[in-house]
């Protein structure tokens, strides 16, 4: 399918229309300037859409929370009777994602499907339409051009050959309009079902969009030798001093892992009052001291620097060895959220120097 064109002035209307069929998530700017990816199907969708911001820097919490909420009920019980609380699959439109976050979502899709399938995640993620709006003003801390995760993803859609892109639609900001690239059968269907919002793009706009993509790439100032760093991690060339140095400053708050688009560790806890209750799971972080502490008190990762090495090696070595893809998508959230100014990008820089 050819590139299409969507006028900026019609985006809100398109989102409202989509709400009729899809659970629709969009980036909403909150008081104070934080942008959150929120569902807008409620009564307040009109006023919510007045705060739509597609030119945001970075979502505070990555959109992983849609498939893997921070707190999720596994089941409820009444006496001995268990009722599972698996989310019923529903059509979800994720409109206005960044390319790096889409890479994060695909990473988690693969993880939750591997070995034992996680029905909670997979039900929440089924029937999902991923719409990228590529970065125009990338945030200071990100490095997607080095991680090869953005600011735009390649278009591979070839219906006849069965080839699809990592996204369903990808939008490029070109002045008053978005150029819309179609990445999948589902993306094409969406455009066809909402024909009145889309026009065919002129050659001139397509040329403009290419310029816009290049400008976005050039706007990303942080450059690291990602491949060399990964190689050094995989070859066990990282001296423990790097971790020890970080351990001196890190306060082990776990914030970087909560905001990370590919972190998927969770804790499980029960809640009960009288005869009924629930079993929950909630995000956990491998840097916490209690994360590996056994009931006997024995803790195989008691030392701080060992927890630090786990945190970075999981992303830059073990994920890569297991899947061929690094667990870091270069979004820079770990650095932006860190109270003591440590980010994975500095570790990658150090590792690339070896």
């Amino acid at each position: 399918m050819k590139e299409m064109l969507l006028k900026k002035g019609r985006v809100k209307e398109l989102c409202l229309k989509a709400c009729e069929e899809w659970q629709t998530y969009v980036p909403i700017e909150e008081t104070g300037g934080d942008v959150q990816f929120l569902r807008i199907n409620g009564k307040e969708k009109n006023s919510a859409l007045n705060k739509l911001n597609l030119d945001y820097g970075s979502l505070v919490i990555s959109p992983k929370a849609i498939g893997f909420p921070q707190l999720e009920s596994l089941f409820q019980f009444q006496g001995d009777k268990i009722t599972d609380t698996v989310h019923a699959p529903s059509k979800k439109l994720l409109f206005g994602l960044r390319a790096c976050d889409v890479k994060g979502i695909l990473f988690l899709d693969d993880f939750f499907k591997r070995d034992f399938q996680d029905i909670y995640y997979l039900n929440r993620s089924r029937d999902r339409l991923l719409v990228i709006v590529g970065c125009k003003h990338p945030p200071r801390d990100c490095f997607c051009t080095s991680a090869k995760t953005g600011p735009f993803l390649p278009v591979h859609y070839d219906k006849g050959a069965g080839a699809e892109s990592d996204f369903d639609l990808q939008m490029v900001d070109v002045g008053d309009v978005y150029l819309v690239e179609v990445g999948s059968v589902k993306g094409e269907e969406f455009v066809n079902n909402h024909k009145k919002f889309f026009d065919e793009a002129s050659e001139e706009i397509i040329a403009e969009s290419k310029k816009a993509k290049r400008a976005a790439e050039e706007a990303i100032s942080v450059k690291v030798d990602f491949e060399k760093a990964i190689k050094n991690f995989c070859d066990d060339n990282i001296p423990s001093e790097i971790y020890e140095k970080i351990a001196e400053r890190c306060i082990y708050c776990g914030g970087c892992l909560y905001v990370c688009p590919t972190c998927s560790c969770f804790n499980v806890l029960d809640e009960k009052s009288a005869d009924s209750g629930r079993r929950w799971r909630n995000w956990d972080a491998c840097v916490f001291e209690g994360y590996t502490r056994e009931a006997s008190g024995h803790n195989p990762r008691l030392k701080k620097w060992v927890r630090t090495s786990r945190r970075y090696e999981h992303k830059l070595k073990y994920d890569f060895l297991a899947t061929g893809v690094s667990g870091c998508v270069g979004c820079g959230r770990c650095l932006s959220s860190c109270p003591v100014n440590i980010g994975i990008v500095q570790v990658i820089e150090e590792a690339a120097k070896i």
Partner: protein
Amino acid sequence: MKNEYIPYPAIIESIRDESFDTKTFKVVFEDKGLAASFNYKPGQFVQLSLLGIGEAPISITSSPCNQGFLEFTIRAAGKLTRAIHELKPADKIHVRGPYGNPFPFEEVKGKDLYFVAGGIGLPPLRSIINEVFNKREEFGKIKVLYGAKTPDELCFKEELKRWQDITDTEILLTVDKPDESWKGNVGVVTMLWDKTDITSSNGVAYVCGPPIMIRFVIERLTRTGFRDENIYISLERYMKCGIGKCGHCNIGATFVCIDGPVFSYNQLKGMPEKEIAMAI
């Protein structure tokens, strides 16, 4: 798609005291179909739940050759296991599984088997020990080397006596702190090397116990000539899901829950030293 997080109700049939802080629970699934179809192998574990209190990985100490029930030997160590110790026969408990990789069984037929356990490390090995005894003639010499802190803390006291009488089988016990009635060996489990003949030529060793004990036993086995691939260790790690998702039991690229809990020493050596140093 199966919901792996949902546990199934089971009834506690009987409870046996093993020591001052350890009990063995015999349980039967409430659902007769599930009780009949629940297939496991020695070395595997389940996730055991008390609704409203929590869930933990517990190794299965019964053997598949005794069908229709499961046994779990549990030390009261944390919140959940203390609550389990409060249970009475006919009470309900929830079970899901079985999970993890078992001990090698078919592969070691004809071999001499050495089971080396410390304290609460015998329950996971008991499953394969009884499975082996069920087909006694298919294996070579069998030696169980078992150490505990005190005589009271030796699990399966009656069974240990019965095992003594099985053909070509030797049961060697030791304790760290003897009481007045103890007439046996005193010292750590590796002192039993001086009390019997341990030969590596046709031997396979199964090890389970506290980390420090595992470390010394592996060192001793290696010195005795056991090859790395003939030493099997069952590892303990904090776990939440048992199915390779929660991340807690990771060692390097390995999930103890789905890639273990049984590992050969060969596999253990391939894990990052800084993470394994404190785990064994």
